[in-house]
């Protein structure tokens, strides 16, 4: 003869299943949202890649500038900024700081190049500088930093919202780091 379950046990098991369903669903949903925000930061062509490409343009400009300028502090400074932007191990806050200085450093190098006779005679390098400036501008135009910050802020606010946010937080869903 089969054993029957007391109704109280059935109710408890059902409640446990419902709670599991709620928690699992909440964590799954929050993780999916977080994944999307993370893709904006570290995904292919995300914010980290944009910073890295801007750093790469900085390095490329240094290559062009060093053909005409020897021992230039402006080029050294640009190279330092570019190195930080292309270094995966640097924290996001550090990259933000250096990215904010990149455009000024590029302008300083360009101004320095303007005083170089060999640069003024090199149509090729003038085109390269224009090309690199254009690429830096195009990469900035996407305004990836603002979009990421907006997305991260929205996610963090959602994570602080009552019940579902608290459950997700308790079950290990972490807030997103802001680009600041």
């Amino acid at each position: 003869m089969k054993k029957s379950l007391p109704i109280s046990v059935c109710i408890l098991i059902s409640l446990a299943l419902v709670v599991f369903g709620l928690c699992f669903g909440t964590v799954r949903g929050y993780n999916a949202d977080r994944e999307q925000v993370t893709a904006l930061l570290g995904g292919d062509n995300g914010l980290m890649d944009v910073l890295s490409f801007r750093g790469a343009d900085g390095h490329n400009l240094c290559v062009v500038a060093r053909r005409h300028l020897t021992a230039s502090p402006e080029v050294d400074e640009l190279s330092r900024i570019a190195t930080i932007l292309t270094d995966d191990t640097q924290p996001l806050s550090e990259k933000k700081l250096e990215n904010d200085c990149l455009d000024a450093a590029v302008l300083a190098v360009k101004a320095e190049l303007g005083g170089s006779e060999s640069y003024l005679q090199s149509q090729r390098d003038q085109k390269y500088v224009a090309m690199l400036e254009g690429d830096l501008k195009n990469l900035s135009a996407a305004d990836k930093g603002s979009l990421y910050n907006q997305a991260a802020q929205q996610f963090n606010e959602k994570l602080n919202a009552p019940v579902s946010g608290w459950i997700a937080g308790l079950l290990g869903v972490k807030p997103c780091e802001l680009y600041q």
Partner: protein
Amino acid sequence: MKKWICGILSLMLVLCSTAALAAARMPQSRGVLTDDADVLSAAVSAAITEYAGDVENEVDVNLHVAIVHFFDGLDAQTFANRLFEKWELGKEDLLLVCAAGEDSFATALGSEVEKELGKQNVDNLLYTSSEFSAHIARQEYDLAFAKYFAAFNELINKRFDSSVTLPKTLASVGSYNGGAVQEYQSQPSGLGGLWNQITSGVAGEREDTVYMPSLWTQTVQGVVDNSADYTHYTEQDSSNGIGVGGWIILIILILIIFSQSHPVRKAKRSYRKSGGSKPLGWIGALIGLSVLSKLFRK
């Protein structure tokens, strides 16, 4: 012993520093020749592709050439090695990379090619045998590649004891000596690609437009697409939770649990005894509706 430890530590340091470098923009393979910098003429480009086919058929070496404007802060050899990996090249592949804006270049070889030709011999082609480096420094790209492949052809014929011949275009361009460069470049077919034309003013580029290599344009497009993916996701109805299917499975599980409870079993037995056979009545008994209705009647 100390030397060994120092060697291992240096190697680890080099590996770590390389790994720390973020991804450089690398072109997608377009076959034998990927001229993202657009510096080679159509005739030389076609001849390189033709020659690569001949080399593959004769000696089983697959040639690949990638030309970009810059290496994005990487040194030439690191860029070559990474591109070799990215393009998933194998034992019989040889990759020659060149950055037109840096006057820099390197080769990456598959293990079989390295065994047959030797890395040193292949690198010598770049610096001494072919005057490749000198022509690259003078932005004579057609000539540089034609001379390189002429020297490369000699090397493979010697090493493999083969008789691969250069396509006519490569042979004729490669046979120009220093004094004849001007003569070669003045021929309409000898003008390099778009970049050469722009820098020599032939293309008549407008002042307000800036030439952009396709690799960079694609990268910027990729950045825009990445943002669009997120916007698209947020515009969709967010399906947080376990979904309708999940809830249905959960309800079925709960019903199965309840059907094993004492009162439901009792109800099912009494329903069967009363001769009930309608499907709805049976299902109602199964999920314990009869028990609930009895409770309400009380």
